[in-house]
């Protein structure tokens, strides 16, 4: 018999700290699958953020650095400038990337830093117990918006992919989701394309992945997938926002 699915080599054989049913685990694995398929594990250097994926340095077999909260794109910049031939990626959540680290994210894109960011958007701070994120939806109840996110008080959620795609430095930006098997496959293809963008030296690439947080959303893993589809997808439409690879290939 032929193995059609097994743990990718680039994914360390450890138990993640993610809660049951949290789709972080899927996204973490997809990155490893792509590293395997591109044969880049030995060339890759990953940067872990602060947030639920803070322990990501334990999840991959490639070299890893742990960054301070929000600073992963700056750390990745430092690595990439020393070793341009390495495949350098960050794995960041919404609080890390779109709140405390907004400046680092925007300027890495503006510089067209040749790195890849995997941006996990689950509309909440998971690690600290479910506070409002910059991507929390209007009306969303969190620990710090117990009466729902109100526009008058907390303003509007940030659409990072749209915002970053206005920058000339961005080379590839796509928003995907991991709510279903077909979408998981598309998410993997997007991650692969983003890494390829870096290998082709096209510049800054980012894949925003809509993800669930069953624990802090107060839902079962299956209900969380429904909530993602019904509430997050209208606010955060899936699709390619910027693609210099295909343009030049045409």
């Amino acid at each position: 018999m032929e193995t059609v699915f097994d743990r990718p080599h680039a994914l360390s054989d450890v138990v993640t700290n993610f809660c049951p049913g949290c789709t972080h685990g899927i996204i973490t694995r997809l990155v490893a699958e792509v590293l395997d398929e591109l044969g880049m594990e030995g060339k890759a250097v990953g940067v872990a953020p602060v947030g639920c994926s803070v322990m990501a340095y334990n999840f991959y077999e490639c070299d890893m650095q742990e960054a301070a909260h929000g600073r992963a794109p700056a750390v990745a910049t430092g690595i990439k400038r020393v070793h341009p031939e390495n495949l350098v990626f960050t794995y960041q959540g919404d609080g890390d990337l779109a709140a405390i680290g907004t400046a680092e994210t925007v300027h890495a894109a503006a510089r067209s830093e040749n790195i890849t960011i995997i941006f996990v958007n689950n509309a909440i701070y998971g690690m600290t117990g479910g506070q409002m994120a910059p991507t929390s939806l209007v009306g969303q109840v969190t620990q710090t918006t117990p009466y729902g996110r109100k526009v008058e008080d907390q303003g509007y959620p940030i659409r990072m992919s749209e915002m970053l795609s206005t920058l000339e430095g961005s080379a590839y930006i796509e928003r995907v989701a991991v709510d279903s098997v077909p979408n998981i496959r598309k998410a993997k293809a997007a991650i692969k394309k983003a890494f390829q963008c870096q290998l082709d030296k096209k510049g800054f690439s980012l894949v925003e992945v809509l993800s669930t947080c069953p624990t802090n959303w107060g839902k079962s893993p299956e209900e969380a997938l429904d909530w993602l589809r019904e509430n997050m997808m209208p606010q955060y439409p899936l699709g390619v926002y910027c693609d210099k690879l295909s343009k030049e290939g045409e």
Partner: protein
Amino acid sequence: MARVTFRADRCKGCGLCTTVCPKKIVIMDTETINEKGFHPATVIEMEKCIGCAMCATICPDCVIKVER
């Protein structure tokens, strides 16, 4: 002929795999509690398995191996 194997000790009991199986042969084993304290996922009627790997694809914890 296909085969799925579960690393029951790694399963966090989220049940996502059971929602995607086209043959409805992946279930939560409520008779068993693994060392993490969860009812792990398992398979019934293995002969019906088509090796589509949908269960493994959605599993957040790399519990499932699929052979065909």
